[in-house]
């Protein structure tokens, strides 16, 4: 293997792994703290992508700026959704009840959001070209928007790490993740933490959507691909541990590239799912899920 190929593999794994990680962290965080499997998570990603697309096409606003607008839009959407659809559900003490009804409700939400986006913007795929220039660094070539994606994803992962491990809010969230009953006993405001988890999860999805929109086509049904990714990365990395999502994302990113390079991508999904099954047999809670 040529040395340049080696570096391309490292870079590509990192680039894809970080975006996988980012996509999965928001999904994992919400499930960990509320036990809601948000099937509409992919649609929040699509909304972020559309925000970036329209701001760029209509007002030439670059995606890094659109991130802030996407955050605001996702908060505006998520707040009423939480109040109307999830707040009462989360008052239940039964984890199974929350899990089952959470899936049903967010499944309905997913279809409604897809339908809404298709109605308003049509199902036709869209795209835009931003920082699509190739740059050469140490005789390796990179596309600028991919480098930007890596930088923003890495910053986001660090910010989330700081938020979850170094702030009171994060510590409260993690307490709820690790032992909800104890967290409630010591007087944590569960509803507030649930709401913040939902908002944070939606915001992460929105930011991931903005980043993905720079590389992929945008359409109302794009979310399903990323929802499945979030599922796999969360299962590999470990439910209940955002750090697990980070590691799972990088691992899957690297696997994706390596399988493509060696065996060929035709068997990519088969190998990844086979490894997932094997891993879950050995460690049912994923790599970092404890137990």
């Amino acid at each position, binding site marked *: 293997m040529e040395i340049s*190929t080696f570096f391309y593999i490292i870079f590509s794994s990192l680039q894809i792994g970080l975006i996988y990680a980012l996509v999965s962290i928001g999904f994992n965080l919400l499930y960990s703290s509320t036990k809601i499997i948000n099937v509409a998570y992919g649609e929040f990603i699509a909304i972020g992508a559309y925000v970036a697309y329209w701001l760029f096409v209509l007002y030439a606003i670059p995606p890094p700026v659109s991130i802030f607008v996407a955050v605001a839009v996702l908060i505006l959407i998520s707040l009423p959704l939480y109040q109307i659809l999830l707040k009462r559900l989360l008052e239940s003490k039964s984890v199974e009840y929350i899990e089952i009804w959470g899936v049903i409700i967010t499944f309905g939400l997913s279809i409604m959001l897809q339908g809404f986006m298709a109605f308003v913007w049509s199902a*036709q795929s869209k795209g835009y070209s931003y920082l699509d220039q*190739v740059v050469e660094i140490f005789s390796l070539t990179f*596309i600028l928007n991919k480098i930007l994606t890596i930088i923003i994803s890495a910053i986001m992962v660090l910010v989330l790490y700081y938020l979850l491990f170094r702030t009171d809010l994060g510590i409260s969230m993690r307490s709820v993740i690790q032992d909800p009953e104890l967290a409630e006993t010591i007087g944590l405001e569960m509803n507030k933490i649930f709401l913040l988890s939902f908002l944070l999860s939606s915001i992460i999805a929105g930011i991931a959507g903005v980043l993905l929109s720079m590389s992929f086509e945008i359409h109302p049904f794009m979310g399903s691909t990323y929802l499945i990714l979030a599922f796999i990365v969360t299962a590999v990395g470990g439910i209940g541990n955002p750090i697990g999502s980070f590691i799972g994302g990088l691992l899957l990113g690297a696997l994706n590239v390596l399988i493509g390079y060696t065996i060929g991508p*035709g068997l990519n999904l088969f190998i990844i799912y086979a490894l997932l099954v094997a891993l879950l047999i050995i460690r049912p809670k994923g790599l970092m899920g404890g137990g």
Partner: protein
Amino acid sequence: MKNKLVLLALIMVAVLLFGCLQQPQQTQPTPTPTAAKPAKESIKIGFSISLSGSGAGAGTEQYRAYEVWREWVNSNGGIYVEEYGKKLPVEFVYYDDASEPARAKSLYEKLILEDKVDLLLAPWGTFIHLAIVPVIEKYKIPVVGNTAGVELSKINELQTKYEFFTYPTPETTAMAYVLLLENIGVKRIAILYAQTDFTVANAKWNKKFIEDRKFADVVVYEGYPLGSTDLKGLLLKVKGTDPDAVVVHSYPADAILVTSQMKELDINPNLFVLGVGGQTLAFDQKFDKKTKEGIVVLNTWHPDLHPEAAELYNLYLKKYGHNPPSHAIGLAWISCITLQKAIEKAGTLDPVKIRDVLATETFQTPFGEVKFENQVNVKGLTVIDQWQNGELKPIYVFKGFYPNVELAKEFKTVEMVYPKPSWPK
């Protein structure tokens, strides 16, 4: 208990909303009298189309092309049907099949039995075309297919009398590809393909013809799952073989992915060919003029080749805004106009009689002749387009049917940009 009731209510609302999406959507002919039903006031044509799911992008283009044709026909008074002694406007009844073959199959049955449509138009995509065959055979209503590329052996296996395939078979398009490659003189070819029936068949025949004619080596031959989010590993392998041609039998989403990652990895073959997807709106928007320059894509029509087709294309642009002349649009019109001509020739709305006309007659359409032999259009064109200065231009047109494919010199094409310029930096 209260929680449960609220949740139940929400679910019911969701289910109702979902149910509403499944109501037939009707487009009325302009203007339609609403008086009590006389003998015949319109031709009711039904179809299901992918307005959601994996095929929604191309399905939407196809649906829009149907709409443009309907308005165009109705603006001329409709289709003349001899048995009624007048022109009848076209009315659509259609459903979203969510890109699911099973759903499409039951929707076509519903269109025939409940909505009682007179005739049918095709759904989107090869696999959905195939899924509805048992229904149209059972009820004996012809469908002039469009976005379906099916191998001859499979068409024969279907033993269909009512499904007609306008799109050139993979054997035919693959042979056109190979004539192009041989004509240019490339020697090392990498063939990649999305793992769908249509693209696998194209790639298979593509490889076979190259090997049969012995003018070049196939240095990479690899498939990848549809919906891949990354193909860099595979493309690094391609880069290592230093091919002078990369041929990707792509679908829309992966056409963007492959192009973007080829550019990123600075893979610069003299010839870079994409299948369907290289001519979509998203592809056009995604890459700037310099990046697209020299990329070759597969098509079946181009407004520059047929001035009459340009009229429909201009109507499309006026109604829906900018869109490159993608294959889904052209194919939709080829099938609509063929059906229209068949109705006119048959002079009746009797589907069996129309089927017989389709099976035996030759149709002049704004896209050239259409003639079905054993259910397959043997007059279809394979148009090779190239992105030049930000626009899609026809560079080669092939006619004929496997194994007698040849260059159609009667069409005026533009000179090919070769070798493809390196990716801009």
